[in-house]
């Protein structure tokens, strides 16, 4: 089986061209692929369609950096702090550019990805009936159920060009273990044309194959594996590091104006060639204070026979 390990720069260059639809931030608040997002910004990617339920501040950053033409999401902002200023500037004033917004809820965006994963054209649901999300959505449409005539909303399959999934560990061949709240990671990975994993650790295949139930998706979907320790900071990675709440507060303050955001971006993204230098800039003490302090191992499971 072929090795699929690439550098972050190469993986983004090769598999996320301008105009791509990209699913990311798929576990909601944890495991957000900030390192990958920052590389998209550094490579000045344009006209991306962002897909995800809640990507905390990563969507706001990509929007503020001008990478995004369209958002298909349930929530864009700063989870612990409130609004996303770049999202507001883009939608209210077209700064740095206008944005097409397709509003979903968490369930409906999950069902849209699930429909694509299942290879079915749509899933009919009863959530959102009577809401303006449904009324204004360009793809979701009302239809009575042919079974009993009751109202439903049809959520069409949504297939991202690429899903970027941050995981605890992956092997070089392109299989990943992920644990914690899974959000829509699986649905997005199976729905997407291809997946880029950014991983805290690259481990031998034996580690991954020792627990096939923990594998997110099969190798046939994998485009690339990137070794990205700390790649989800400031979002948390169970078993590795905690959420850096201060970083979200700091970002909130420093993104209030476009000028402040430009400065923040210079400091934390454009001024850092890669994640190692980002972590160095964060500082050893702060990074150490976030690292997991106590191991809590899952009970052993025996696949023997």
């Amino acid at each position, binding site marked *: 089986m072929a090795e699929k390990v690439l550098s972050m720069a190469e993986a983004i260059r090769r598999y996320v061209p301008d105009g791509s639809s990209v699913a990311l931030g798929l576990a909601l608040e944890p495991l957000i692929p900030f390192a990958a997002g920052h590389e998209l910004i550094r490579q000045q990617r344009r006209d991306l369609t962002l897909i995800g339920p809640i990507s905390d501040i990563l969507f706001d950053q990509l929007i503020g950096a001008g990478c995004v033409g369209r958002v298909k999401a349930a929530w864009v902002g700063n989870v612990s702090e409130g609004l996303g200023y770049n999202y507001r500037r883009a939608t209210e004033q077209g700064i740095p550019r206008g944005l097409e917004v397709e509003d979903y809820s968490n369930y409906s965006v999950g069902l849209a990805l699930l429909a694509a994963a299942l290879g079915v054209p749509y899933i009919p649901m009863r959530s959102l009936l009577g809401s303006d*999300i449904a009324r204004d959505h360009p793809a979701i449409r009302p239809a009575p159920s042919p079974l009993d005539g009751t109202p439903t909303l049809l959520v069409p399959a949504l297939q991202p060009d690429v899903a970027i999934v941050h995981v605890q560990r992956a092997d070089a061949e392109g299989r990943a273990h992920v644990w914690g709240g899974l959000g829509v990671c699986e649905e997005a990975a199976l729905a997407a044309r291809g997946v880029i994993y950014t991983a805290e650790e690259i481990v031998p295949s034996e580690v991954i194959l020792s627990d096939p139930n923990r594998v997110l998706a099969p190798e046939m979907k994998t485009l690339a594996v990137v070794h990205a320790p700390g790649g989800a900071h400031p979002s948390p990675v169970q078993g590795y590091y905690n959420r850096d709440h201060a970083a979200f507060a700091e970002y909130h303050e420093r993104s209030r104006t476009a000028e402040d955001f430009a400065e923040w971006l210079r400091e934390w993204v454009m001024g850092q060639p890669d994640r190692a230098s980002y972590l160095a800039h964060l500082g050893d003490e702060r990074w150490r204070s976030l690292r997991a302090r106590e191991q809590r191992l899952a009970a052993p499971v025996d696949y023997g026979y």
Partner: protein
Amino acid sequence: MSTAAGEYTPQELMVVCAARQIRDGEVVFVGMRLPLIAFALAKRTHAPTAVGLFENGLVRDTPSPELLLTMGDAPNILGAEWATRTVALMGLLAQGCAQLGFVGGAEVDRFGNLNTSYVGRREHPTVKLPGSGGGADIASLAGRLAIIMAHDRKRFPERVSYVTSPGYGDGGDWRERVGLPRGGPAAVITTLAVLGFTDDTHEMELRSWHPGGSPEGVRAQTGWDLRVAADATETPAPTADELRIIRECDPQGFWTR
């Protein structure tokens, strides 16, 4: 505000009111912020067997051992009884397994419709809010809905300009007519009051005003001619026990100060 139990903040009172919405044994779709603490408070007082659902794919029958800034924080995952995919979790909600759900909002109207999306016209909003998250799903599918809001005239218009999360639409049997399978707002817990909805028209009405306030004070901060329930009364203040537990849950007062 103050009570025999001592000083407390409006947020602490809201947590107490939210916790009181939870009945023992219920399955509760827990939202972000104050409900995170309300769930812990209810578990440790009158609702020890309540179960919490979180839209990132978690079920907990014990509250998180530490304060949560987001539901995806590591302490919320350790000790969960189920960690799964959002769609599997939301499927339980869609089946009708959650008796109660919490949501917050930026605007709520006379019939409990919530806006967390667009202030002003959708095409050119004056304020673009973050959107639904799981809120619209919870409002659509939970058995009862409890809404947590800051209370002022701007946030309580007669009719929201955009319905992110459906309440009772234009009242009466609207939910049934549009096909929602169940539910609807049962309580609106604000910085000033606790409000409910009438059985027939499903119009919001004042149920209790917070200590130090008055029905008139609440009505003045509401954007329509708010009805006052016949048996409306003052909100019972937090007990010393309730305050102690809240402060154990949020010692820095991140959410409750």
